């Protein structure tokens, strides 16, 4: 079976006062139908820019996709017209972001935001869309759907808003959902609710999921495959189990070693130790001051 998504040598730059930032510097990976793939890495490593590039949502200027192909269901998204791309977003590919408040429209009711998507992308009439909206809220575990549909985003908790975003992402039966740090802003018990929900629904509906996160626990529980990003590149990728138990790239090793673990008593020194020379060569010039700032 061919992959659902194939990213090939994707490059995205930003022109800034300080020069050109190669935020995404030639990444390639694939996602199979129904599969959950994690993109993991520390802040600034290019995870979000990578995802936004796939959706062609990079603000230009200052940003520009300078090269690469993104094959989705047999078509290179980079060659689609703006109009075709607009149809793709929100119907074939759903999106869930960290802060639902910025992606929801504050002056529209929850119900209207869901039905609008359905009317636009699926050509449903109002009655059919209303009914589907109720169904969708049930799907994402929101009780008393009728009342919720009449509320505005600010009247809901962060967890509820994220459930709504998932409902909107699923509204048009997409084949792929891209979730960028979908639970980072939420409390841990709500985080767990949302992640379990996403896992359940993507399995049940056979939707593929790209989950972007900096949390290695989340990756371990929810992803089948992992791409580790560092400084705009994928430095290591593979099956989750293999990558955790036999990491090869020094950055992956350092990253895994630095995660504190709840299930074990005090671990050995948290900061990466061994081979500092090798590490510093590998980490120079980045926010990630694994060695630079160490005491």
């Amino acid at each position, binding site marked *: 079976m061919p992959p659902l998504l194939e990213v090939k040598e994707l490059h995205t730059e930003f022109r800034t006062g300080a020069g050109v930032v190669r935020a995404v510097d030639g990444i390639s990976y694939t996602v199979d139908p129904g599969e959950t793939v994690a993109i993991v890495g520390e802040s600034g490593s290019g995870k979000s820019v990578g995802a936004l590039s796939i959706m062609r949502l990079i603000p230009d200027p200052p940003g520009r996709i300078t090269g690469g192909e993104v094959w989705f269901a047999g078509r290179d998204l980079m060659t689609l017209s703006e109009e075709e791309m607009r149809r793709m977003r929100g119907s074939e590919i759903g999106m869930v972001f960290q802060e639902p408040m910025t992606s929801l429209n504050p002056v529209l009711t929850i119900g209207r935001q869901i039905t609008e998507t359905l009317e636009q992308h699926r050509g449903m009439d109002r009655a059919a869309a209303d009914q589907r909206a109720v169904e969708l809220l049930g799907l994402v575990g929101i009780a008393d759907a009728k009342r919720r549909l009449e509320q505005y985003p600010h009247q809901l908790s962060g967890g509820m808003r994220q459930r709504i975003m998932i409902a909107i992402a699923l509204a048009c039966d997409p084949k792929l959902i891209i979730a960028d740090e979908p639970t980072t802003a939420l409390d841990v018990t709500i985080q767990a609710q949302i992640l379990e929900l996403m896992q359940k629904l993507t399995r049940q509906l056979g939707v593929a999921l790209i989950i972007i996160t900096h949390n290695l626990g989340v990756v371990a529980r929810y992803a089948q495959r992992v791409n580790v990003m560092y400084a705009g590149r994928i430095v290591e990728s593979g099956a989750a*189990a293999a990558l955790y138990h036999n990491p090869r790239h020094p950055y992956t090793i350092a990253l895994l070693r*630095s995660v504190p*673990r709840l299930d074990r*008593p*005090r671990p050995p020194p948290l900061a990466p130790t061994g081979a500092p020379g090798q590490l510093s060569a590998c980490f120079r010039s980045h926010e990630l001051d694994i060695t630079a700032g160490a005491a």
Partner: protein
Amino acid sequence: MTVASAEAQPLLQVRGLRMHFPVTEGMIARRHIGDVKAVDGVDLAIQRGETLGLVGESGCGKTTMGRCILRLEKPTAGEILYNGIDIARLDRRELVALRRRIQVIFQDPYSSLNPRQKVGSIIGEPMMVHGVEKDPRRRADRVRELLSVCGLNPNFADRYPHEMSGGQRQRVGIARALALNPEFIVCDEAVSALDVSIQAQIINLLEDLRDKFNLTYLFIAHDLSVVRHLCQRVAVMYLGRVVELAECDELFDNPLHPYTKALLAAVPVPDPAVEAERAFQPVRGEVPSPINPPPGCVFHPRCPLAIEQCRRVRPELRELRPGHWVACDVVS
């Protein structure tokens, strides 16, 4: 009831602490319509040299606890004894002395550092304000020493905050907190904004400093995984109350309160083999409003073990094992 052991007098003792914020309605004639019960009856003791972790999800009252201890809020009820003296009753002069001994490190190194001030003057400022190291040359030396103690190049004194990474800025925040040789530091989400590898370094630094200067920490965090490494004891808060308090390893290996269990289970372990085997059901619902907390046990609407009594009776902390306190009348 106080959760103090029979040991020496604790450095800090909190008794029956309540901090209620009035909620008003109306622009002109403000009507009092209720209270946010941010902290609602907390007892805690911290021994000298100890690190007590204070964990719980956002809004449970951790920051408010810290602010009361720093005397940035005036509690509604209860007392906070520092070295046996109620800090609410201090006069101005005593308060100034207290401010030297208790310092704070905040979550966000960006917003807690003045962007227009050089690092040297940021760290030197508390010394100026409190009249220590009045000689500029000696103050500059002390700043350089503090930078180096915090793992930064002493030349960073001439930099601005925006010229540094997040981890480096947090080191500056720590150096500033150390400037007056404090005894007690409230670390409020001190590593929460940092990437994991940087978190690890800052935690190691806090640990080294604790040993070097015999510091006592109240280490506030919503992220449980950073707590296990640094703290000797941990208190878990939920909706303004401490629901469980125990030695660190005991709390993580043997959690007793249903909320603590839910909290720990919600954090996935960074090991796919462990996670593949681990079945779990996330705790249902969300944290209720602290304006109208549920009667009885505040956790009962979400609790898998709740029985009729939990709806009526507020559970007090009970010592179920030596040093392990739990506010739940169902578990034993």
